[in-house]
């Protein structure tokens, strides 16, 4: 600390400002709003939703102010100077020598994510005003949404791991509440439970990781920085100081990464994310695409020094993060091909994009990965809201692309255009934002020496382009089908009950009853957020547009921490059009091939393609494998859950039946058998006495054993205490 203070005196003093110093207000506002909505929301004219929107707006303003002042702060620093984060902490509570703090840790990364979260949350809340109008738990929905944002914001600006954990768990809880928002439908509540338990599985890793870090780092951080071992800044410095034992930090990094796998839906815990689409579409958009699931990625980016040292990033060869990321990219992209539900396609695409972020972080491409969080949030939120818009206004609350969509580009022009922009951004087409982030990740992965992983990234890009084209084609081109063709009126309600698991009948009835409607464009409250997001999906990439040279790399200047004792040194790949054009060619190839196949398969019904999976066995097997999601769900439920729960239950049953009963009846049975044997084999007359004796013996053993199970409390107490007394005596005698 002293060393650092003297250093920064020489360098330029850093500018700070009100917004930076008071950034802790950002999560406090939604938290207060949450309490207000719960308490008085139902009595307000708009049922509490206005409080939610207002609080998100003010958080956005605060976050934007902090962002502006952070930019000033970085500008006031010299080129090589480490921009000191604005850290404040207070002691929250203390217990038995542990000091749990509460505070803020504002640096480029947290400001960036704060702005994204506040911004997307605001738009989603506005969108929900229309989308959930008339829902029976409207107030609770907004309360949960607001609390969720508060939790995420608190997690993002946490200065220590305890606060981080708090925010993380609040998000998990809200996510559970929101996925199960329409819990009357069995599928929804099951999806909510699945999400909750899967994420909880990973959370165990977070707890373990935090504990390991605390106990191994606390002494060092107290000594050198005067902060506790929970402090993010302390942990970062400790990890890079060379002090930690390499095994300990590796275990800690792996434990933390398990939490990221759970939260960010990485392989093999990705199965909850597509199911989480059972929640209302705004929830899918906010939680499961642009904010909550990046929490795992954020954790890796936040404690990057720990992962950097612990998993030997840049050390050559692949590491755990990269391998998991790469596997996730490919398998989830493959799954996206066989989905008919538009939200599930997007969900798998999210999983796949999160895989890219992980791959980037694992390969030392910190900046592109973080930038991908930023751009991905915009275009993925836009895609989800677009999907919601379609189902809300055109396809009668169905998300089934094959049955209820098609040909919508004419009736929903705004949704169509925003969708196309976001799709191109997702595919990484120049000059849309995805290009600048995703291509940078792939490029940097290659630059850091991981050629194999770069190829996987390119394959992923090809697949992304292909499945998005398929989804776009099915939704917007070709002939209108099902509900989108206006068949909704005679499309009987029981048919809906079967495929309409995603939007409950609650909105359905409130919103649709008596309305004779075909497909139409959605209202302004839905289209305006879509338009804003699509503009950002188009434009946000230019904030870090590497192709145009150093002066365009604003984001790098603002966000990436300079190399110092708190941040590892990272390299950047120089941009080359040759590489970029290669990936662009691949993307266009993906689009073109997929377009050709889609149009032949779905519109022209080309006989060579239709039913291909039925005809060619190998393809059929592959298709079945994908449709069943690699049998992972079945594996988890049938093998893991059953292998743990079933033996326990059966063992307990066996114990009950055989051991407990056996103790009491065993004597009786054994002697009875004996007596039968004796009766049969030896002459009755001679051994009459013996038989009688053994019967009496049976009875006496039975009565001797029976009183121990009297059901009398005093007796149990007496036995307990006597056992304890004897044990204590034995211990004392042994020890003296």
């Amino acid at each position, binding site marked *: 600390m002293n060393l650092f203070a003297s250093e920064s005196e020489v360098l330029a003093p850093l500018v700070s400002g009100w917004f930076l110093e008071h950034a802790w207000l950002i999560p406090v506002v939604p938290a207060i709003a949450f309490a207000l909505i719960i308490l008085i929301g139902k009595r307000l004219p708009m049922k509490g939703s206005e409080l939610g929107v207002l609080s998100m707006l003010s958080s956005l303003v605060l976050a934007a102010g902090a962002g502006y002042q952070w930019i000033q702060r970085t500008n006031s620093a010299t080129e090589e100077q480490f921009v000191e984060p604005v850290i404040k902490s207070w002691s929250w509570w*203390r*217990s038995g020598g542990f000091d749990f703090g509460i505070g803020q840790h504002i640096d480029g990364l947290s400001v960036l994510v704060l702005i994204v979260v506040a911004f997307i949350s605001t738009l989603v809340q506005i969108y929900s005003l229309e989308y959930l109008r008339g829902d029976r738990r409207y107030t609770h929905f907004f309360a949960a949404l607001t609390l969720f944002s508060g939790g995420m914001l608190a997690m993002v600006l946490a200065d220590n791991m305890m606060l981080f954990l708090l925010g993380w768990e609040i998000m998990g809880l809200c996510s559970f509440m929101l996925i199960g928002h329409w819990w009357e439908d069995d599928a929804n509540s099951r999806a909510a439970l699945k999400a909750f338990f899967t994420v909880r599985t990973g959370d165990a890793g977070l707890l373990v990781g935090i504990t390991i870090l605390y106990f191994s780092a606390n002494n060092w951080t107290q000594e050198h920085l005067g902060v506790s071992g929970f402090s993010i800044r302390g942990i970062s410095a400790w990890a890079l100081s060379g002090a930690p034992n390499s095994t300990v930090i590796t275990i800690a990094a792996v434990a933390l990464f398990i939490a990221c796998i759970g939260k960010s839906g990485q392989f093999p815990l990705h199965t909850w994310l597509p199911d989480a689409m059972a929640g209302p579409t705004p929830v899918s958009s906010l939680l499961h695409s642009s904010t909550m699931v990046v929490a795992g990625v954020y954790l890796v980016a936040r404690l990057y020094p720990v992962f950097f040292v612990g998993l030997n990033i840049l050390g050559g060869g692949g590491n755990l993060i990269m391998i998991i990321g790469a596997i996730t990219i490919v398998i989830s992209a493959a799954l996206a091909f066989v989905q008919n539900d538009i939200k599930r396609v997007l969900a798998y695409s999210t999983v796949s994009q999160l895989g890219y972020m992980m791959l980037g972080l694992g390969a030392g491409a910190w900046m592109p990965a973080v930038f991908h969080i930023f751009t991905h949030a915009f275009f993925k939120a836009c895609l989800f809201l677009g999907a919601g818009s379609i189902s809300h206004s055109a396809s009668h609350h169905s998300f089934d692309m094959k049955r209820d969509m098609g040909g919508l580009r004419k009736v929903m022009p705004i949704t169509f255009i925003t969708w196309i922009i976001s799709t191109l951004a997702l595919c990484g087409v120049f000059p849309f934002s995805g290009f600048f982030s995703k291509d940078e990740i792939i490029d940097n992965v290659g630059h850091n020496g991981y050629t194999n992983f770069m190829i996987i990234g390119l394959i992923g890009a090809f697949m992304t382009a292909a499945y998005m084209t398929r989804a776009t084609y099915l939704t917007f081109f070709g002939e209108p089908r099902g509900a989108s063709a206006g068949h909704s009126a005679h499309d009987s309600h029981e048919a809906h009950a079967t495929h309409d698991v995603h939007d409950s009948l609650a909105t359905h009835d409130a919103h649709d009853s008596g309305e004779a409607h075909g497909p139409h464009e959605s209202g302004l409250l839905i289209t305006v957020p879509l338009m804003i997001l699509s503009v950002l999906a188009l434009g946000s990439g230019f904030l870090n547009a590497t192709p145009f040279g150093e002066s365009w790399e604003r984001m790098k200047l603002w966000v990436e921490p300079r190399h110092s004792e708190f941040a590892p040194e990272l390299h950047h790949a120089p941009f080359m059009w040759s590489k970029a054009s290669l990936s662009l060619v691949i993307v266009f190839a993906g689009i073109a091939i997929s377009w050709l196949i889609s149009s032949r398969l779905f519109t022209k019904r080309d006989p060579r393609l239709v039913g291909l999976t039925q005809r060619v066995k190998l393809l059929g097997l592959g298709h079945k494998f994908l449709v069943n999601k690699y049998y992972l769900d079945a594996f988890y439920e049938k093998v893991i859950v059953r292998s743990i729960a079933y033996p326990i239950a059966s063992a307990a049953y066996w114990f009950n039946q055989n051991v407990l009963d056996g103790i009491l009846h065993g004597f009786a049975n054994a002697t009875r058998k004996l007596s039968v044997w004796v009766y049969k084999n030896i002459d009755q007359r001679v051994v009459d006495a013996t038989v009688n004796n053994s019967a009496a013996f049976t009875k006496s053993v039975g009565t001797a054993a029976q009183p121990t199970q009297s059901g009398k409390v005093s007796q149990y107490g*007496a036995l307990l205490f*006597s056992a304890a*007394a*004897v044990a204590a005596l034995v211990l*004392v*005698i042994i020890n*003296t």
Partner: protein
Amino acid sequence: MIVAALRVVTTNNVVHAALWLVVVLAGAAAQYILLAAEFVAVTQVLVYIGAVMVLFLFGTMLTRARIGAESDLNNSYKKLGIPVALVMLAAMGLALISSFGVEKLPQTATVVSSQEISDQIFGPYLLPFWALSFVLLAAVVGAIVLARKD
């Protein structure tokens, strides 16, 4: 004190037992004072002798135990209880003698002021204190729910 404690567990009259318990608790409070724990002793008198005893007497009254001698207060495990208690006493006695012998308590110890205790409670032991508050709250609510006639 020990005699009083023995009477608590042997007397045939519930009310007498309660009164003997008062003697035991008062004796314990005296021991606390000898141990330089004024505040705990005062709390003992207030809470135990003041409140808990009243509760016991009310409990006795409400369950309509006879005020007077009863013959069937003990169950058949009395025979088991005596050796158990003696064995335990032997175990503890052995352990105490072997580990502490004739060690003496510090004579210079000053009385622990209630300020020190409060500093402890509201400092490092704040969280247990909160937990305790909730336990008490739960106990109050629980007692009301259990005893309510409905």
